[in-house]
C-alpha cells in the first residue's frame, strides 16, 4: 500500500495553469513536471522497507525537494518502470526483482549490493499467541500475516517456511513488507514474517535457529534513460557511501 508515501514535489516547480495540467497528465505516468528545475531533481523508486533510511538520507544530502522518493513493493516498482514511469534510480529488496529489471533492460550498468536485511518471526509485545517457533505458523487458530509470495518479503518467507518444512496457515497475504508489519504493529495478528528493520517497539522477535534465517540483499542501479544521470550517480554514491551506510545501519540493515 501507499506507493507514493512522499508526494512528488511537482506543483512548486511548475509555472502556470497549463504547466500544472501538463504536469498532472505526465504524473499519471509517474514522472515529474516539465518545469525549469527538472534537470536538478532525482526520482528514486525504492522498496517499501527502505522508507526510513532513504527519507532521512534525502533530507541530509539535499536542502530542498530535489530528491523525489516513491516507495512500494519492489516488484510493483519494476512494473511501474516497465509501464514507462520516468525515474532515475531503482532500489530493490532482493536480487530476483532487480534481475527482472536488468533482463528487461530497465536499468543500466551493474546493480550494486548496498545493504542486507533478514527475515524474522515477529510477534506483538507480550506474545499473546504463545509463539515459540516457525512451526507455530501452522496453528490454525493463530492469526498470521505474510507478504504476497510474488513480492520479495513473501518470496523470502516462502523460502524460510520451505527450509523449515512448515505448512503455514496465513490469514492475510499483504502487498508489501510495510503493510505486513503494519498489521502486526496494530496487534491484529499473532505472528508475522517481516524484515528485521520493520520491527518496532510494539513487537518482539522470536529467536530462530541459525539455519532458518533468510538474508535478503538490497540492490541499487541507475534507470536506463535517466534524465538526471549525474543526480542518479550522486544519490547512489550517497547510499553506498559513509552517510548511507550510517543511516542504513541505524535502521537495522547490515551494510557491506
Amino acid at each position, binding site marked *: *500500500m501507499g506507493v507514493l508515501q512522499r508526494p512528488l514535489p511537482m506543483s512548486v516547480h511548475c509555472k502556470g495553469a497549463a504547466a500544472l*495540467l501538463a504536469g*498532472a*497528465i505526465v504524473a*499519471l505516468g509517474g514522472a515529474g513536471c516539465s518545469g525549469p528545475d527538472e534537470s536538478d531533481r532525482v526520482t528514486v523508486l525504492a522498496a517499501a522497507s527502505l522508507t526510513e533510511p532513504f527519507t532521512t538520507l534525502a533530507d541530509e544530502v539535499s536542502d530542498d525537494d530535489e530528491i523525489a522518493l516513491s516507495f*512500494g*513493493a519492489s*516488484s*510493483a516498482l*519494476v*512494473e511501474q518502470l*516497465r*509501464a514507462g514511469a520516468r525515474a532515475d534510480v531503482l532500489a530493490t529488496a532482493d536480487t530476483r*526483482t532487480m534481475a*527482472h529489471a536488468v533482463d528487461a533492460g530497465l536499468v543500466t550498468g551493474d546493480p550494486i549490493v548496498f545493504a542486507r536485511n533478514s527475515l524474522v518471526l515477529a510477534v506483538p509485545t507480550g506474545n499473546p499467541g504463545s509463539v515459540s517457533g516457525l512451526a507455530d505458523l501452522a496453528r490454525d487458530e493463530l*492469526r498470521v*500475516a505474510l507478504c*504476497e*509470495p*510474488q*513480492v520479495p518479503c513473501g518470496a523470502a518467507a516462502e523460502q524460510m517456511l520451505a527450509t523449515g518444512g512448515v505448512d503455514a496457515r*496465513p*490469514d*492475510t*497475504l*499483504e*502487498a*508489501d513488507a510495510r*503493510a505486513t508489519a503494519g*498489521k502486526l504493529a*496494530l*496487534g*491484529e*495478528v499473532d505472528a508475522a514474517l517481516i524484515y528485521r528493520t520493520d520491527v518496532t517497539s510494539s513487537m518482539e522477535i522470536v529467536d530462530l535457529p541459525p539455519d532458518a534465517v533468510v538474508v535478503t540483499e538490497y540492490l541499487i542501479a541507475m534507470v536506463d534513460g535517466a534524465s538526471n544521470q549525474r543526480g542518479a550517480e550522486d544519490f547512489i554514491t550517497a547510499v553506498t557511501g559513509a552517510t548511507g551506510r550510517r543511516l542504513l545501519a541505524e535502521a537495522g540493515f547490515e551494510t557491506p
Partner: protein
Amino acid sequence: MTRHSAEARVPVLFVVPAGLGLAILLLPLAGLLARAPWNRLGEILGSDGVLTALRLSVLTATLATAICLVCGIPLAWLLARGSFPGRSLLRGLVTVPLVLPPVIGGIALLVAFGRGGTVGSWLESATGTTLPFTTAAVVIAQSFVAMPFLVIAVEGALRGADRRYEDVAATLGASPWTIFRRVTLPAVAPGVLSGAVLCWARALGEFGATITFAGSFPGITRTLPLEAYTAIGAGDAETAIVLSLLMIVVAVAVLALLRDRWLVRG
C-alpha cells in the same frame, strides 16, 4: 426538456480545457484497451485466482447490498419522515463515508472492530471470534462505504413521493406497517432499485477499507480490486489489466442500467 431553435454556439475558449478534461478521463481507459492481452483474455478470466476473486466479490457485494437495504431503508425513512432533534446532524453523519477516503474508513473499522478495538475486544471476549481477516469483515467494510448511496437515493425518493396516498390509507384504518409496505414502498420502488444498484456497484469496487480492515487472502478476503492490486504489485500487469477491464464493463453496465431505467427521463 425544452429545445432551443438554434444550437448554442461553443465558446472557442472552452475547446482546449474541455478536450484536456476528456483526455484525463478517457486516456487511461484507452490505455487499458491498448495494453489488454486480448489473446490471453479467456485464459486469464478463467484462471483460478480470478474466478475465486469474482465469486467472492459477487457474494460479498450482494450480502452488503442486502444489509444496506434492510438497515438503509428504515434509516432513510427516519431521515425523510421522522421528526426528532438532531435529524439534520444525523443526515450529515450518514453521508460522511461518501467523502471519507475508504482507507480511513478501514482504519476506523480496524480500531473499532479489530481485536484491540472497543467493540472488537468485547466481541472477542463474548464470542471468542475476531472480525479482521474474515469474509464478514469484507461485507462490513463494503456496507460501510456503500450504505450512504442507498440511504440518499431512498431518502430522496421518499421526499419526492406524494404523501396524500399515505394519509388516505391511514384514514381507512391501515396500520403504519401496512401503509409502508402497501403504499410507500411501491411508490419509492424506483429510488430503492437505483440506490441498490449503486450500492452494489460501490461495494463491488471497494478496495481501501477492505484491504485495511479485512486483509487480503485468496477466497476469504481478496476481492476483485484486491486481486488486481496484488497482480500489479507482483508484476503481473496482464492480469491487472484484464481485471480492470472486467470492473469497467461492470461499471458501464450499471450506468447503462440506471440511465435506461431511472436516471434520465425524456
